[in-house]
């Protein structure tokens, strides 16, 4: 009885806290809701946060947009779709944000995208790589910034086909990203080089690669080349084990994402020479747009940017430009503005395609090597995302009708 009363007290306190603790919104600002899995993927998302905070500071210093300052309400979504949807609900219903942006893992991105569709609120997916978020599960209210798994894979295929290697080994983290990358790579390479064979496929549990055995199994398959979509700790273990066992000596390797500072920097002395990667050589991009970004970033944080920083920065810029173009915080106007929205990012101008809501942001494609004991991209070119998407009629078929 008494304990029950205690429960009652908790319930009441909870209701009261939730009911009355709504923060007072600063008058006249435009509120944007941001959610991400900060504690689950800090290596990417700490720089990401710095990126959007820099952009936010610049925008507000220049007077904001539509004559109002911007306020970002940022939340940790705990890396789970369930919590993310709750956080999104909170941002929408309690904070009254104009729209949502952020997310990192694909399942969280998809969940929030579907929530956006249900709630009829704009969602700018910053980082999720899954093709589905703009294609099979695409919806009217969701737009995605980063080049997808498909696009980044497609960026590597021309170089892969050029080598005319016949026997390919594939290694990938065993979840949707790795599976999609593998599928896309096989499909696109077969198209470019019909005699390609895939002699072994190693699906490793994410974060738990048994690197010795995997390297051995790949070596035993005697491949002419390797395609990998590993990243993070799996990549580091794979690289070290492969170096020790001489797997990469005469076998070229193509590895998605491995040129991103987040994943390349930890390799240091271990960095394999000559791998083909997608990435972000911040030290060598000499466009004016990037230079401005780099200087501002280094000045503010006394640190170099990672790819996450660029994504965060570009996400914030997208939000600002969408508001500017829409001239309003009305969702329908914002959605209309997002379709075909063009803006400048540190990586160059991008457009959010009206067709499938995918931005044309690209990535740098090139090869990696060591410089002063650190991994860097030694040669690279910018691959514009617009050139690595399937033909429009194919995309239309993939995407459900609105």
């Amino acid at each position, binding site marked *: 009885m008494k304990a029950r009363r*205690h429960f009652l007290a908790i*319930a009441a306190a909870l209701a009261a806290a939730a*009911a009355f603790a709504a923060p007072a919104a600063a008058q006249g600002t435009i509120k944007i809701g941001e959610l991400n899995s900060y504690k689950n993927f800090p290596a990417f998302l700490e720089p990401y946060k710095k990126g959007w905070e820099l952009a936010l500071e610049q925008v507000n210093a220049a007077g904001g947009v539509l004559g109002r300052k911007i306020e970002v309400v940022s939340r940790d979504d705990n890396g789970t779709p369930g919590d993310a949807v709750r956080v999104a609900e909170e941002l929408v219903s309690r904070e009254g944000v104009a729209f949502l942006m952020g997310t990192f893992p694909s399942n969280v991105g998809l969940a929030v995208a579907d929530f956006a569709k249900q709630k009829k609120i704009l969602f700018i997916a910053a980082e999720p790589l899954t093709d589905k978020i703009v294609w099979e599960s695409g919806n009217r209210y969701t737009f995605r910034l980063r080049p997808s798994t498909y696009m980044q894979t497609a960026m590597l295929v021309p170089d892969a086909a050029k080598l005319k290697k016949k026997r390919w080994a594939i290694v990938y983290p065993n979840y949707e990203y790795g599976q999609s990358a593998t599928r896309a790579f096989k499909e696109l390479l077969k198209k470019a080089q019909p005699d390609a064979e895939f002699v072994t496929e190693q699906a490793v*549990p994410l974060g738990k690669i*048994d690197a010795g055995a995997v390297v051995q199994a790949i070596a035993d398959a005697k491949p002419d080349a390797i395609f990998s979509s590993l990243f993070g700790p799996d990549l580091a273990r794979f690289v070290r084990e492969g170096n020790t066992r001489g797997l990469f000596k005469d076998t070229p390797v193509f590895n998605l994402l491995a040129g991103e500072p987040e994943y390349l920097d930890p390799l240091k002395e271990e960095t394999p020479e000559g791998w083909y990667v997608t990435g972000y050589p911040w030290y060598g991009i000499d466009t004016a747009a990037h230079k401005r970004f780099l200087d501002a970033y280094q000045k503010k944080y006394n640190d170099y940017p990672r790819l996450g920083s660029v994504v965060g920065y570009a996400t914030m810029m997208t939000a600002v430009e969408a508001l500017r173009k829409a001239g309003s915080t009305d969702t329908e106007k914002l959605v209309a503005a997002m379709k075909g929205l063009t803006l400048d990012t540190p990586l160059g101008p991008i457009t959010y395609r009206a067709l499938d809501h995918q931005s044309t942001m690209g990535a740098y494609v090139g090869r990696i090597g060591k410089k002063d004991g650190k991994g860097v991209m030694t040669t690279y070119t910018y691959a514009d995302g617009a050139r690595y998407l399937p033909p429009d009629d194919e995309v239309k078929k993939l995407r459900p009708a609105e």
Partner: protein
Amino acid sequence: MASIVAQFLNGLASASTLFLIAVGLSLIFGVTRIVNFAHGSLYMLGLYAAYSLIDRFGPTPLGFWGGVIGAALLVGALGALVEVAILRRIYRAPELFQLLATFALVLVIRDAVLWHWGPEDLLGPRAPGFAGSVAILGKPFPEYDLLLIAVGPLVLVLLWLLLNRTRWGTLVRAATQDREMVGALGVNERWLFTGVFALGAFLAGLGGALQIPREPAQLFLDLTAISDAFVVVVVGGMGSIPGAFLAALLIGEIKALCIGLGTVTVGGVAISFSKLTLVVEFIVMAIVLIVRPYGLLGKPLAMQRGAGAPVELPARPDGRAMALAGLAVLAALAALPAAGTPYAVVLAIDILVFALFAASLQFIMGPAGMVSFGHAAYFGLGAYGAALLLKRAGLPMEATLALGPLVAALGAALFGAFVVRLSGVYLAMLTLAFAQIVWSIAFQWDAFTGGSNGLVGVWPSGWLSGKTAFYFLTLACVAAGVFLLRRIHFSPYGYALRAGRDSPLRADAIGLDIGRLQWVAFVIAGAFAGVAGALAGYSKGSISPEVMAVSRSVDGLVMVLLGGVQTLSGPLVGAAAFTWLQDTIARNTEYWRAILGATILFIVLAFPQGIVGQLAAWLGSRDRGAPEGMVGWRRRRA
């Protein structure tokens, strides 16, 4: 042939690694009966500490090996500190309550590591003298792996000598068999426990530090390591160190075999053994536990509740006052949409869903005495069952809400048949194995379950699409569920269940079929967890495999323990407290994991029987003094 030998050696190297991760956990459990969730965190700390020490002293032989040993010693010292400062205070708490404290430590350590070492993966240097490879049958094989292959058995032998050839070891072994006996011998049990915990932590730290040349220090290591460690310890037999070695060998070799086989075509069907690595250790564990209920070399454990553990006092069914109080809570909750903000309603839905989930878990943990580490499987089966029937079979949402839980109940019926043959931690780990197998199916079966991305567009019917309407649906389902569970608790069946837990001997002697009673309890709990899962899916509009991941199961356990495992309102209070705390802390602070962990630690120390359990104990009087419908705790008779 050369390939087979090479893969066998790879398996041996993994086995040594697994053994080093697991052996400390086995030792700690064997003596103190603590299920140390933070063991993986200690392993992670070992790796980070070794990285820093080697970085400071340089990768010379002295710097490297000194760094490895130094890191292990540091972690051992931390283990001793944790034991003295925290665990020692709660040895007399109900069974598995220490698990809650170690869970809190996981949260705190994770954030502390992030704060101190930053988010970037840290790949350490190669070991001096063991940097290259040697050719074995023409295949290059890392020298360091050869070293590891030797270190595993070496540690096994040293531990054997320590336990069998020293007085301290004799005492530890005695304590493994009979804790009271050691106390009676006049040995200071406390320091023995501290010593064992420190040694276990040292071994975890050593296991981590020795991985420096093989893997980067990173923030997910705690969870992967703890999962590996538990599997090895349980497969080997809890408390058996040679068993842990054997289990590590078995799992290491089977994994290497799966990877070596890759994709094999049998009769036109391609089977990817490589994909099996996602879950193979859990399949091994399930098979071992079904065949040998105490692991490979384990022995049946003495009762989990040793002397000094509190005994549950008789519960009295709900009287009128209790019914009124229940109605008052219900009325308050019903008034929430009118009185609270829209977000309060959203949060309340989550809390209600978890309350039912936790209540269903309590139903098997409390009256049936079966701890589950895999209860999320049934939450997930309910969610997936409902979502798949909606999306793939096109059934109306209302029907799926009833059928989803049925799917969960069927799953529980199937797995429960095996589970109830076991007891204690073995039982808990078998539930985990089954949960992981179900999870891996949902995770990999892209075409049907949506794979790791899950399913989207799982929204309720139009009339329920408003948050308020859905809230009332949730409230109705949860209130009915909680009421039914309470009712069953006080029914003849509920009594019989409790009888089987209190004294299997006596229950058997008065005609009760305990196995059957427990199996039915498992199915009931599965069905109610399924209701919670189905509601959760529809409240979010999407589901993905994380609804049945280990972390969800652990959350459920934490809620039950937080509230008080032998109280009926405990899980409800625990679910509310945990969900609300997490939401509030995560919203307002950056290092929210650490603060959540610290809060849980505080609750653990201040309420060593769970929130409701402790209140009941404070407020309760002697023989029958437990508040109505509550169960109080008293010390078992000496």
